[in-house]
């Protein structure tokens, strides 16, 4: 006789199921905030417009950090822009992902010996996907986004959780580079 066994799901199981459903929506509708400081930004217009059409993957540019899911850091970061990048990253609503574009975010690229530029981005904010190259091809940029979707599906895009867990380490690195990182809430002061 066929019978269906009902087992009571624990709270962790229920949470995991909901999280998987949420992950389906999150990976099919990734909105980006483009932080274009370097020359790699020139690869984004062909990725967005009719040549490669990012929108067919459900992706699109967004105007403010609150609305965005991905922080796209393209190119080198000077110490001044790093401070703004950290403000921006902390304003984004979770779950949030970071994509580093070009070799400048990996090891400093051609600016590795400049005194005004940081070399490794993932010492200051957690990076989920790197797209290597100087500058990366547009196919490589699109492939990076598809990789990020795969990482979200396999639950490996956990940079934002890492930022909570190892917050002291990130904060120490930020302080070492910038001196002081204070998040101003200018509108409510």
């Amino acid at each position, binding site marked *: 006789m066929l019978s269906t066994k009902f087992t009571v799901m624990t709270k962790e199981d229920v949470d995991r199921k909901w999280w998987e*459903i*949420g992950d389906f*929506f*999150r990976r*099919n*509708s990734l909105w980006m905030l483009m932080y274009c400081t370097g020359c790699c930004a020139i690869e984004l217009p062909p990725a967005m*417009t*009719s040549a490669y*059409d990012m*929108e*067919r*993957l*459900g992706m699109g540019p*967004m*105007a*403010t*950090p*609150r*609305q*965005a*899911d991905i922080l796209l850091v393209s190119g080198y970061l000077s110490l001044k822009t790093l401070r703004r990048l950290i403000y921006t990253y902390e304003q*984004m*609503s*979770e*779950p949030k992902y970071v994509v580093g574009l070009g070799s400048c975010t990996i090891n400093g690229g051609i600016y590795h010996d400049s005194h005004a530029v940081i070399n490794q981005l993932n010492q200051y904010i957690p990076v989920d996907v790197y797209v290597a190259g100087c500058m990366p091809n547009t196919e490589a940029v699109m492939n990076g986004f598809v990789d990020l979707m795969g990482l979200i599906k396999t639950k490996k895009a956990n940079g934002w959780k890492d930022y909570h867990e190892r917050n002291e380490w990130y904060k120490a690195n930020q302080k070492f580079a910038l001196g002081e990182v204070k998040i101003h809430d200018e*509108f*409510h002061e």
Partner: protein
Amino acid sequence: MILNILFGVGVAFFGFVLQTTVAGVNRKVVARVQKRYGPKWYQEFLDIFKLLSKRATTHGWIFDFGVIMALGGIIGTAMFMPITSDLVAFENFDNFFIFVYLIAVGMLGMAMSASGSGNPLASIGVMRALTTMLAYEVPFMIVVITIIKLTGTSSVSGIAEFQQLAGNNWFMIALPLGGIVGVMSLMGMLGKKPFETYIAPAEIASGPMVEYGGKQLGMLFIMHEITVFIEVSLFVHLFLGGAENILLFIVKYFLVYTALNIISSVYGRFKIDQVVLFFYKWPLIMAVTQAFIAIYLGWVI
């Protein structure tokens, strides 16, 4: 009474599903205009449910309460909307002025919430939205009052039935100048491209929505879809003769929204003073001329 309320909520839900689907298909249409492939047709649903699944910050209780007030006010407005001439949740309460008054509740809720975030760009966006509203309401009202004068009723389904009984003599064709004014005002209401001034993503960072993220933004998206449903169905009922059955309504709705989107996809953006000047110049002249011709001279095609 309870059945009526349930039916009204059903109308609002129908409007949400219809408009979200039509908007998703329209993203594909606009993509084809721009020689792209375009997203999936259900992309708008994915976006909304993704936003509802995210965590969100708050900027004080006015910020949260305004969002709920906006969504509630718009659902309350949509409850009165007739779908066909017989399918009305509250019989005899589908007056045109009810929509004009109630839609303001949702708009003001959003304005209050956006101002509560404290971001100056949000205040600029709200101010521009209200200015745009002031601009398109005047010519639109003149045309609608002309229609009310001609039909002798201000009930939306009554106006639709009047056009059907006159042998599908739509006011879009019977009052040609008024029809053009109606299309232009509808584009202003929906915030389509030439009149997109209060969203302006590259200029004031999406205006009133600048501080929203996660769940609040998801609720605002739902509110926006239902608002579009109310405005486009008002146009369908007032100018295109309503609909005898629900299939005809969906077809007319889809055609109106797609046509507006195609027009909007080839335009740039006006400045806010250009929007006001535009609406107070040509649409207003056309609306007054149409009212004069139709009411005093009695020339209706």
